[in-house]
Structures are given as structure tokens and as C-alpha cells.
């Protein structure tokens, strides 16, 4: 059912796109039609795949590192009110600085290679993961905490055996957001300075007026993001069902 909906949405989009190209009589260097883009995608499949692999590596590394850092921060915040008082204003302030503004500095510090893009992705997903997981950790049902206290549990044991497992659906919500944001971070990093990746390919194609190739790169990037989101969504849902609750709703 879901696949049929997705297919329907794609076909509608392509139809509207083709209609605009025909009705507005746009030249192909402004808006190429779907067929032309598909041709470009097929012709340059090796090139696109090579650059997509690099962007995917950046995104996956960023997602993994961001998830680990975010989860660790959330647990630290949940355990220590002092850390909370110190770190929460900094976290909120860090969100007020647009990541775009930091990209040139990161490129300066970390170079043109992989790590400046990974770090961009980490920066952009760190806050949503931390914030979602922290919220989950602070919303443990009071009854569980009372029961654990009466049983003589230590704070560490309550965190490990009750608060973290109870907050895993919230972490899933944070990771789903991360899956959408991480490619944005990586591509911004590639725009600012790099010699490979889908972001770089887009700029390159644009500069050489190969607009059909540019569109092909954009579509591959979109497909990448959607696949990542669907995978994480599927895993966290299966996980929530496995633990007996349908409570993974975002």
C-alpha cells in the first residue's frame, strides 16, 4: 500500500514536471524534461555513483558519530542537573548559529577532504538527536521510577535498565530527523569546498551548463535521503514492536 502511494506520488510529480516544460516552453538549459534528465542519469551513471558513494559515506559517518555523541550528551544531561544548567543554554545558542556560516571555517580547519563534511553532518544532527533522546529520558513513567526506588535500585541501574530502554522510541524519532538533516550538512560542506561528492557534482554540472546532469544529481541525492529515512523508520518501528509497545510514534 505504501509503495503504491510512493509510486503514485512520483508519477504525479514527473507528470507535472513534464507539463510545465511543455506548456511554458522552457529551454532545456533552464529546466530539462524528465526524459532528458533520465538520459543524463543513465549516461553518467558511473560518475554519479562514484560521487554518490562519497556523499553516502559522509552522511553515514556523520549520522553514526552524531547519534553516538547526541545519545551520550542526552544521558549526561539526564543524569546531572549541573551539566543541564551549564550545557542547555550553550546547546540552544549553538542552534542560533546557522551551520552554513560555519562551513567555511570547518573547511579551513579540517581541509577539503571527507572530515569537514562529516563534521558538518554531525553538527546538524547533534541537536535533534540530543534533544529528542533527552526528552524521552526525562519522561520515564513515574510508576517505574517509584517501583525501582522501592526496590533499592541505584541511579545508574535505573538509567540503564529503565530510563534508557523506555526512551529508545524517542531516540528513534531523533534519528529519523537526523536521517533527513545529515545529507543537508554533507552537501553544504561539499559546496563550500571539495573535489568530490554529489554537492560538488551539482556545482560542476551547473558551471558547465549541464543542467540535466545537475538535476540527475539532485534526484539521486533525494533518493538517498529518502532511502536512509525509510530504513531508520523501518528499523525503529520493528524494534518498538519487538519490545511489545506500539509506542514509537514521533
Amino acid at each position, binding site marked *: 500500500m505504501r509503495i503504491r502511494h510512493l509510486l503514485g506520488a512520483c508519477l504525479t510529480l514527473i507528470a507535472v514536471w513534464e507539463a510545465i516544460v511543455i506548456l511554458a516552453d522552457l529551454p532545456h538549459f533552464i529546466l530539462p524534461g524528465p526524459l532528458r534528465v533520465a538520459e543524463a542519469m543513465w549516461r553518467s551513471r558511473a560518475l554519479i555513483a562514484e560521487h554518490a558513494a562519497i556523499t553516502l559515506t559522509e552522511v553515514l559517518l556523520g549520522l553514526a558519530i552524531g547519534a553516538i555523541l547526541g545519545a551520550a550528551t542526552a544521558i549526561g544531561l539526564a543524569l546531572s542537573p549541573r551539566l543541564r544548567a551549564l550545557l542547555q543554554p550553550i546547546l540552544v545558542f549553538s542552534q542560533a548559529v546557522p551551520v552554513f556560516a560555519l562551513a567555511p571555517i570547518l573547511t579551513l580547519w579540517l581541509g577539503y577532504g571527507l572530515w569537514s563534511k562529516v563534521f558538518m553532518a554531525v553538527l546538524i544532527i547533534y541537536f535533534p538527536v540530543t534533544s529528542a533522546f533527552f526528552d524521552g529520558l526525562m519522561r520515564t513513567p513515574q510508576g517505574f521510577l517509584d517501583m525501582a526506588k522501592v526496590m533499592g535500585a541505584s541511579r545508574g541501574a535505573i538509567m540503564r535498565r529503565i530510563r534508557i530502554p523506555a526512551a529508545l522510541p524517542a531516540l528513534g524519532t531523533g534519528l529519523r530527523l537526523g536521517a533527513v538533516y545529515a545529507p543537508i550538512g554533507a552537501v553544504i560542506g561539499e559546496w563550500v569546498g571539495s573535489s568530490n561528492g554529489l554537492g560538488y557534482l551539482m556545482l560542476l554540472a551547473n558551471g558547465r551548463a549541464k543542467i540535466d546532469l545537475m538535476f540527475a544529481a539532485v534526484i539521486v541525492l533525494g533518493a538517498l535521503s529518502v532511502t536512509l529515512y525509510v530504513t531508520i523508520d523501518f528499523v525503529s518501528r520493528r524494534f518498538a514492536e519487538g519490545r511489545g*509497545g506500539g*509506542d514509537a510514534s514521533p
Partner: protein
Amino acid sequence: MSPAPGIEVKGGATLDGAQLFAPLALRLEAGRWTCLLGPSGVGKSTILRLIAGLDAPVEFTGAITATDSAPIPPRVAFMAQSDLLLPWASVAENVAIGAKLRGEQPDQARAQGLIARVGLADHAQKRPSELSGGQRQRAALARTLMEDRAVILLDEPFSALDARTRAEMQDLATELLSRRTVLLVTHDPGEAARLGHAIHVMTGEALKAFEAPPSAPPRAVDDPEMLRLQGDLHRFLREAH
């Protein structure tokens, strides 16, 4: 399990400066079931939380002491209306959670024995979501017994069950929790009349003791003395409110 102590609660409580309940004296006899009955919001659960050493959002002036003068909270086990089973853990894991939370090695053989005693031997590896409401409360009862504490605090543990399951659970709990000091907080006069060795009705102003029928709990559901007491409790609750 250490010998069950008696418990004495003396004092009153205020909530944000307003009186929740006037100073009262409640005595839980050692090894007996004491039922505390009363309308919602009168502070029954607060008394239970105070005995258990849990945070209660009230100012309590007074003292809660055991007849043997030893601290009470380490000797308490607690069962609430919600079964509090961890949804991601199996019945067996839930029953043994106390030891795990204290960093001890759970006695699995004992856990299996208790699961069998509450009639869940075939369900030990299931998740709570696969059980009925009655089965879930049985699992919670097994978890409470696994703690092997001398003082058992019950906060309306049977009130969400249908009439037949409730009567079954009452019988099972009376059998398995004998020789322990039990405080049952309830708003069901029938339950109090059926299970209490001592029965107290709490209103905002005072605590009134009712004499329990001579027969031993759990009393038959058609025991005339029990039914008469149930009627008296009903009437008192309606007039007090």
C-alpha cells in the same frame, strides 16, 4: 524474610498550606491486612507513599515508625493499580527485575517457582502486551513476592480488573501474602470488607475504624456479615461525602 513488623502512622499532611488530612493515628498490625478506604483525593495513596519512603508532594508532620524501630522503606514491596511491568521485558525478566536493579544475581529458580504459583508458567517468556489484564497483575504479584519483603503496600491493585478476575486475584494475594504486614488502599467497600483484618475509612477530617467480621479473609463473597459490613461502609462513605 524478616518477621513482619507492625507500623504506626501518626501525623497530618498539608498540600501547599491547605490541610490534606487532619492529624490521624493509623496502626497496621504485624502480619495482618489493614484496608484503608476512602473517597478519591483524601490522601490514602499519600500515606502509602510516605510509608514507602517515596516523594510525596505534601508537608507531613508526624512520624511513621515500625514496632521494632528499624527503618521501614528497605522492607517494603509495592503494587499499584498499573502493573508497572516493563513492556520491553518478558514476564520472567520483569519478575526478577528487583535483583537486577540492585546489581545482584537474580535467583532464577525462585522466580520460575513464583511464576508457576501465580499460574503463569506457560507465559514466562511472553511480553506483558501479550497478556490479559488479570495475567499482568498476576505477574506483578509474582514480582512483589520475589522481593520477599515483610511489608506490602497495595495501591488499588485490583481495581482495573473485571469482577471475576478481581475475586480470583484477591484470593491469590491473600494466600500468598499471608504473615506479611499488608496495607491495602482501595475505594471499593466490598474489597475492604472481604480482605481486611482491620478496616479504616479515611475522610478529610478523621479516620474511622470499622470492626471486621469474625471470619478470616478472604471472606466468602456471600458471607452475610461481610455483606452487612460492605453496606455499612457504603452508607458511611456516601454520608461522609
